[in-house]
């Protein structure tokens, strides 16, 4: 019994210590962010390309199918009440407020987050970060901050693209397949979806962008510098990001209702 209590205490202390270090790490990234954003924008652009542009294909394909399947489900249920015109609205709400930001963030964690973690972890394992330290170049500033900012900037755009392609997928299913009137399909969306709904999606994607990039960079920087360590860190990035995103999603949604 005593051992269990001791274990619990040690684990709690360890967790709090890590969590504190994580917060300090976040503050460090934020502190250097303005200087990097205005001084070395070229580095940020390169990372927006690496994390954003290179994730486009997977985002677009997934967006198309998620939008299409939403329209299938919506049409199947709406048609029971002769409300086929609302197919687009159901898909649009789901995409803009929930699935756009959430799915994008999950795909981002798998495609870009893992790449960030393993890249930084390998740089650490091969002494590249130490070498920068020795060349009087701060690796947090030169390596971590541009990657963090790249992810933060890319995420809202990716989410917007995901939702837009998703709507196109819904249009294909609703209008082209089930012959819903194209005018009422889009008009219902225009009337019903408010700017505040779009803003909710944007807010979520920004928060998810910060969370996903921060976790990926943190895990990379704290990798145990071995082959096994890099593998583990990469896995943790996906797992922790997925949990964080779904928890944040619930909290933001609850706060806005």
């Amino acid at each position, binding site marked *: 019994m005593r051992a269990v209590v001791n274990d619990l205490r040690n684990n709690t202390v360890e967790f709090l210590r890590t969590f504190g270090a994580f917060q300090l790490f976040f503050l460090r990234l934020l502190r250097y962010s303005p200087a990097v954003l205005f001084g070395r924008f070229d580095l940020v652009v390169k990372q927006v390309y690496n994390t954003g542009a290179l994730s486009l294909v997977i985002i677009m394909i997934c967006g198309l199918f998620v939008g299409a399947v939403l329209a299938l489900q919506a049409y199947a249920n709406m048609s029971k009440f002769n409300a086929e015109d609302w197919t687009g609205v159901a898909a649009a709400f789901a995409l803009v407020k929930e699935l756009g930001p959430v799915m994008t963030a999950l795909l981002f964690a798998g495609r870009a987050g893992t790449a960030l973690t393993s890249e930084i972890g390998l*740089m650490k394992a091969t002494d590249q970060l130490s070498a920068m330290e*020795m*060349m*009087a*170049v701060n690796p947090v500033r*030169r390596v971590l901050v541009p990657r963090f900012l790249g992810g933060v900037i890319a995420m809202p755009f990716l989410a917007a693209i995901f939702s837009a392609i998703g709507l196109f997928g819904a249009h294909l299913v609703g209008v082209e397949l089930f012959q819903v009137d194209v005018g009422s399909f889009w008009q219902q969306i225009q009337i019903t979806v408010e700017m505040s709904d779009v803003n909710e999606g944007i807010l979520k994607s920004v928060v998810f962008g910060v969370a996903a990039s921060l976790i990926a960079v943190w895990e990379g920087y704290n990798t145990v510098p071995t082959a096994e360590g890099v593998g583990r860190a990469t896995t943790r990035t996906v797992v922790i990001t997925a949990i964080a995103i779904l928890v944040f999603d619930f909290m933001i949604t609850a706060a806005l209702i």
Partner: protein
Amino acid sequence: MDDSSDNLIEIHDLKFSRGHRPIFDGLNLTIKKGEITALMGPSGTGKTTLLRLITRQLIPEHGDIYVDGTDISTLTLTELYELRQRFGMLFQNGALLTDLTVFENVAFPLREHTKLSNRLIRHIVLTKLHAVGLRGAADLLPAELSGGMARRVALARAMVMDPDILIYDEPFVGLDPISMGVIVRLVRRMNDALGITSIIVSHDVEEVATVADRSFLISEGKVAASGSPDELRTTNSELVRQFMHGMADGPVAFHYDAPDYAEQLLGRDTE
């Protein structure tokens, strides 16, 4: 201490441990300006750790390290980075930045710390690459280089800011005899012509003997012996003799701590 203005690096009573294993326990050593100093010792004695302590990548538990008269533990991050600009360091595996070409790797410190024109940077980088014989490899990526070539590129990068102090971590491992000869002469020449202070960590007794002005043999957390290579070779300390002549028997145990051999092989399984 004799004339202390000649001392570039002074280490007093250094203590440092990894986990519960003490690495250094009261180490004292002095590195003189303009000399080539070798730090030697059996593997696992913390030679690389010592380099990291000198450059404050690690912080000692006890003791002071002075570089050019300044206690490095008192420096702010900005001052530390200013000091590090005077250092050039060659890492064991080269530690080249994998996403940049050879040329950009060597140019990296210049681009980060100076506002030189591209033309001038090109000039400097090609000169340094030529010195290590790899001007032709400027456009290759680090992944396309052999281990020895990567180390030579890293050497060019370490020299590119014209440092006062060059630190070499195992520079001779994995080099073929030709590159080795060239690199050894390069180290010597930079030292003579430019007055660079060099610190070499190595257990390559022969090569070190040809370049070093002074060697320190580190064992069990302390300096076990010091002096010119000749002095070390003719000393009558058991430990120095064992190390310099590569003998398995002597004060340094070749075997890691283990239970009795016969007992472990023949005895009952105690697990």
